């Protein structure tokens, strides 16, 4: 059977082959990984060009097509997610080169690359597939790879966290699978196009419920977040960056897609989701305020941010999701970039100072200035201060909420913002206080190469805000959610 090489297939299979290769020859793992990533990025760019020129693209694999065959489809949203993935992935990989160069980290070096490429395969697959069974397979792949990355550091805490994560994500996947089963019983087909014009019957609704809960579990939406902080906090820096920046987003993306194609959601369910999001914002904020370690704080802030994204998703006024999904998408992108930068920076700080206990940050005479600066920039985007992309997302969210008179979501957003200010300012205080240092403070020496990648990410998180207009117009290619009437 003739398979015409298309960007989409490359985007999925290049990482896959890369993973296999990297697994087979661990010596060259890093090289292979970087090359694979570079190629994938190239493919994504190619795809983006294609989509930019000629709208949404559909590729029936093996020419069978839906409902049986496997289709790949790319529109503005999915390409944006792909771009996020490969951009963040590339930079994280670069910094991984530095982060994993330690003597005791040979095992990590050996397994990081295959796992990460496998993860990339899964993620790209999620963004491109058009039927829910595919999605199931992909999230399982993601789950396995992600768990692998979590336990990479091999410490007991990491393994424990990884195991919890494993249980959660497999359970989530299985719930999803059950949903898939119901859908098939109901419709006899699994592709989005089939779902789109389905009647909301009991079985379908059960399917929706199962799938949504499964995904909420995988994306750690409050109160299903119990596994996330430990997992993200105990992984090595690049792993945490990937997990928090990209993996969580895959599940979010699926939720968006389901919301697009399913007879779903009703106003009431949206409100429920919004309430869960609000709960996440508050609870995540509180926990971040109490967190004692830097990475734990960052992990909890992830919980809060995801909650915010769901709030954005839930503030669909009478327009339905036609408008609100944009705010969600913007926030997803913003959080992806910024959080990756933040985790990398946190890792750098931890490596430099030797610990990441927030209370004692200001006791150390060593001040990794650039890493701290990066952290601050990322924080600016996460708090949502202008002109960062996070600000734009928050703007879109609040504007929509106001326009449709949903003041409670506005309030939630503002509270969340204030809390994020509070918990990040704890860290800043640690960076900028000097009177508890015994030894003379080492003065900062210009740039350090290891900080380049996170710094770039952080600057991107800020700067993309000024490019919000083109980003939005790109997202709208193929009107993922139709156009406003």
């Amino acid at each position: 059977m003739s398979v015409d090489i298309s960007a989409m297939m490359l985007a999925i299979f290049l990482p896959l082959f890369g993973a296999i290769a990297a697994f087979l020859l661990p010596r060259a793992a890093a090289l292979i990984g970087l090359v694979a990533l570079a190629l994938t990025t190239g493919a994504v760019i190619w795809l983006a060009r294609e989509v930019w020129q000629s709208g949404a693209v559909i590729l029936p694999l093996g020419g069978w097509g839906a409902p049986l065959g496997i289709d790949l489809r790319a529109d503005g949203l999915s390409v944006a997610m792909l771009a996020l993935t490969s951009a963040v992935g590339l930079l994280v990989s670069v910094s991984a080169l530095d982060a994993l160069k330690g003597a005791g980290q040979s095992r990590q070096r050996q397994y990081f690359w295959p796992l990460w490429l496998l993860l990339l395969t899964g993620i790209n697959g999620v963004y491109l597939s058009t039927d829910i069974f595919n999605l199931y397979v992909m999230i399982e792949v993601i789950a396995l790879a992600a768990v692998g990355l979590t336990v990479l550091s091999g410490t007991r805490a990491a393994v424990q966290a990884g195991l919890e994560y494993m249980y959660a994500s497999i359970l989530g996947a299985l719930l999803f699978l059950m949903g898939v089963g119901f859908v098939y019983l109901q419709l006899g087909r699994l592709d989005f196009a089939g779902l789109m014009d389905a009647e909301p019957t009991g079985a379908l609704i059960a399917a929706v419920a199962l799938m949504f809960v499964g995904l909420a579990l995988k994306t750690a939406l409050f109160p299903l977040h119990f596994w996330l902080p430990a997992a993200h906090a105990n992984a090595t820096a690049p792993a945490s960056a990937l997990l928090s920046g990209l993996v969580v987003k895959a599940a979010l993306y699926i939720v968006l897609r389901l919301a697009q194609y399913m007879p779903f959601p009703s106003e009431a369910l949206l409100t429920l989701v919004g309430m869960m999001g609000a709960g996440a914002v508050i609870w995540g904020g509180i926990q971040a305020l109490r967190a004692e370690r830097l990475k734990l704080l960052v992990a909890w802030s992830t919980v809060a941010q995801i909650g915010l994204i769901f709030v954005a998703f839930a503030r669909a006024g009478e327009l339905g999701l036609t408008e609100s999904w944009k705010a969600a998408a913007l926030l997803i992108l913003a959080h992806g970039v910024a959080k990756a930068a933040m985790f990398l920076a946190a890792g750098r700080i931890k490596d430099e100072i030797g610990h990441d206990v927030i209370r004692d940050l200001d006791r150390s005479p060593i001040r990794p200035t650039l890493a701290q600066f990066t952290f601050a920039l990322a924080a600016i985007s996460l708090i949502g201060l202008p002109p960062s992309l996070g600000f734009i997302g928050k703007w879109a969210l609040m504007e929509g909420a106001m326009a449709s008179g949903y003041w409670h979501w506005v309030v939630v957003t503002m509270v969340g913002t204030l809390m994020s200010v509070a918990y990040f300012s704890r860290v800043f205080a640690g960076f900028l206080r000097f009177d508890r240092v015994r030894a003379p403070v080492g003065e900062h020496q210009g740039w350090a190469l290891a900080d380049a990648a996170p710094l770039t990410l952080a600057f991107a998180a800020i700067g993309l805000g000024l490019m919000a207009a083109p980003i939005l117009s790109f997202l709208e290619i193929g009107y993922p959610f139709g156009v406003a009437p």
Partner: protein
Amino acid sequence: MMDAPLLPLFILLTSLLASPVLFALPERAARLRTAINLGMAALKVMLVAWLSLKVAQGVIYDLRFEVLPGLEFKLQADPLAILFIALSAVLWLITTVYSVGYLEHGPHRARFFGFFSLCVAATVGIAMSGNLFTFLLFYELLTLATYPLVIHCGNAEALRAGRTYLIYTLAGGLVLLLGTLGLWVLAGTTDFVPGGVLTDAAAQNPLAAQLLFVVLIGALGVKAALFPLHAWLPIAMVAPAPVSALLHAVAVVKAGAFGIMRVVYEVFGIETAQALGMTAPLAALAGVTIIYGSLKAITQDDIKKRLAYSTVSQVSYITLGVALASPIAAVGALAHLIHQGLMKITMFMAAGNLAEGLGVKKVSQMDGVGRAMPGTMLAFSLAALGMIGLPPLAGFVSKWYLAQGGLEAGQGWVIALLLGSSLLNAVYFLPMLHRAWFRDGAADAGAPARPRIGWMLAAPPVTTAVLVLVAGGFANAPFSPLEWTRFIVDIEYLE
């Protein structure tokens, strides 16, 4: 290039680009850093002079860039903007000189100067923003850029002050975001247009408009240190002297006052604001702040705290002048924007010199410092007398116009207010001068008769003091602040 449309952008970039470079410089490269600082500052002054010439000739500068559909990042250079830019540019130059001298051997100079110029960039941005959205952008940037300066000393007290500062200002910023969104939803635009953009919306939905006014003024009032929201200012004076000088004279406080101007004149429009019945309460609030600040100032023994509270009171003159809704009062307010800046920066730099040269930090220690540091104290005295409002110093001019405006607006109480506040100013400044000049106390017994402070510390306050004298004495000369404010007020009120 005789007429550069990008001129405002260049002015912004002079300091915006300077800051990353300064960050990157290693701690040792002091000379290079100073060179960049001064060079950029001087360049900026020149560009601003050019720009103001152009604007005076009637050239319109308007740079736009769409961020979200319909939502623009917009820089404009109208006379009002020029007023503020000129102030910040000139004072930036002076303060840079001063802080180079002040921090000669201090730690973290790279960080300091990086954020310092970032802070000025933000100020310039605030001045030139053409709509509330852009304003918000730079307003937040200003907050972030000043935070590290406030806590520069890096000790527990500084950090506490910094936290207070951050909470107040970021909360204010958040409320401003809310207000901006509200404006965007209500009026469909956030542009600054002389005469306001809300006339119709206010007519249709006065309640919402009033609410919006309260939200916006509340948000800006945090930085402008209006009465209930002023608490951060006196605390923030733990910052190093040049920072306090900048904070109080140019950057933060003035940003708030400037924002209030923009909001009242160009978002609501003075008529609309009056029609909504919001100006009178604002004026009353300003009045309360003026008196309250002065009263608190009397009770302070720490020099900088006293100056800080005096700022709380003095800045509200600007709000008052705006809220009186009379052209003449507006002239007074705008002039005070400049004059208060000059006077207050002088006083803070002088206070810094006292602390540096004699270790004098409290009013009660000021006995005889006049003889120990004549130049500095002369500058201080000039500024203080200006604050009290003695002719021909700058403070007199603005107070005079405010009083006239009050009469014009038929608000007799303003006179009483001004007299009262002048009296209070006298009550808390004259004792300082008395101690400084007419008492020979422990100060010169303990410290050397003539402490050695470099010219970089000595010259700036004297310069600004001279400026105070000039701004007052030649108030009617062309291109004097007063003349320029008249120019602005014509625009704002003829719309």
